[in-house]
């Protein structure tokens, strides 16, 4: 009874992730911009992690990463591990050392999204000989920017859920 709203909040987060997964994996639903589509799971789990405690943040990071990985391929991997760790760390930082604000959230999300996607490109595209710098510029820059832009609504949605479904 004491944690009733927390359960509802987690259910809401889960439904949100599933909805975003459908949005992300449905062809021609989200428009492509310069060949790029947003990786909605990254800002979604990060904005959750800004507000939640470490363990829930970590599990939502794991779930979002798994959905991202399975959206790309049929196996867990890069995004699952990275988002699990990142969400855990973000939650730790923002619980003890930083204040959650829109600017902080945008800055962190932009930085981490750019790093995550760029590292993905380096490890899985460039080092695999599938594409070079031009490919990164033509496909990955737009993807990073598109993802960062999507952080704005997701931040406010998750903030709304956190504030309105909180156990006092």
């Amino acid at each position, binding site marked *: 009874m004491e944690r009733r709203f927390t359960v509802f909040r987690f259910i809401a987060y889960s439904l949100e992730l*599933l909805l975003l*997964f*459908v949005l992300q*994996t*449905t*062809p*021609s*639903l989200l428009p492509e911009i310069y060949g790029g589509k947003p990786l909605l799971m990254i800002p979604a789990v990060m904005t959750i992690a800004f507000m939640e405690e*470490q*363990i829930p943040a*970590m*599990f939502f990071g*794991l779930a979002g990463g*798994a959905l991202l990985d*399975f959206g790309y391929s*049929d*196996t*867990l*991997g890069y995004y*699952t*591990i990275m988002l*699990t*760790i990142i969400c*855990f760390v973000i939650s*730790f930082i923002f619980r003890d050392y930083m204040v959650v604000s829109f600017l902080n959230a945008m800055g962190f999300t932009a930085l981490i999204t750019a790093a995550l996607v760029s590292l993905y490109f380096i490890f899985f595209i460039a080092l695999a000989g599938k594409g070079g710098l031009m490919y990164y510029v033509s496909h990955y820059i737009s993807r990073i920017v598109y993802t960062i832009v999507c952080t704005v609504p997701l931040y406010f949605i998750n903030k709304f859920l956190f504030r309105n479904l909180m156990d006092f």
Partner: protein
Amino acid sequence: MRDFFADKNRRILAIALAVVIFVAVMGAMGNPWVSSAFNYMTKGLSSVSAAVTSAADEKTYDELVEENKKLSKEAADLRTQLVDYYDLKDENARLWKYYNITKSNPDFQILPANVIRRDSNDEFYSFTIDAGTNSGIELQDPVITENGLIGFVSSVNAASGKVTTVLSPDFQAGALAKKTSDNGIVTGNSSYSDQGLTTLAKIDAAAKIQKGDIVVSSGIGGIYPANLIVGKVRELRIDEYDATKFAVVEPYEDIKKVTDVVVLTDFKNKGEVKQAATGEAR
């Protein structure tokens, strides 16, 4: 290291990561149960995604109207092509038949024609063809099909000609029974024309013609070439007026329904009687 894991959250993180890495390695090694499990779990989501995709692919009303117009036009074009195809196919089949006619009768000059009109008032089933004097047709030219003689051109203008059939009393041609050489005159009879039958009249009383004999044109008179099949004898009767014998002849062609014919514009010995008569007069 021990200090790092002293924190409960960090231990959970480590365990979670260990599980994830284990599953990732298993998946990378090609173990299908991870992806199978995930696919099973996300099957519902995939259905939703597919349904949304299907909905997203649906066209607007205006697009559907436009597409409908385009498809209707394509269908009309294809129907026209299909009709053209059938026309060409029919014409090809017809030309093959005519080729066979000229092959067996090298002296025949033929002109294929289509039946364009039937006179519903004419009880002897005359019809109009789409060829006239411009095509080289003359009065009294024989009209045949691959099944034999069916009539003659009884009137003609520049673009069309009227054909009087063998069912009409106006048709008169010398003919004989091929087997017995008994001769007579093929002419229509109002008593038999409704049944699509004609007659071989004026047969000698002593003639040996029998039921089933084939009747062909005799060629006498120069209007019809010799040996054009008219039909086969169906029955033999006696004329109630002049007591002569006549044969009821069943043409091989269904004259009531014929749609394409051949006009013989020239053949060996054509018009020899007329020319001879003209020569004597001079």
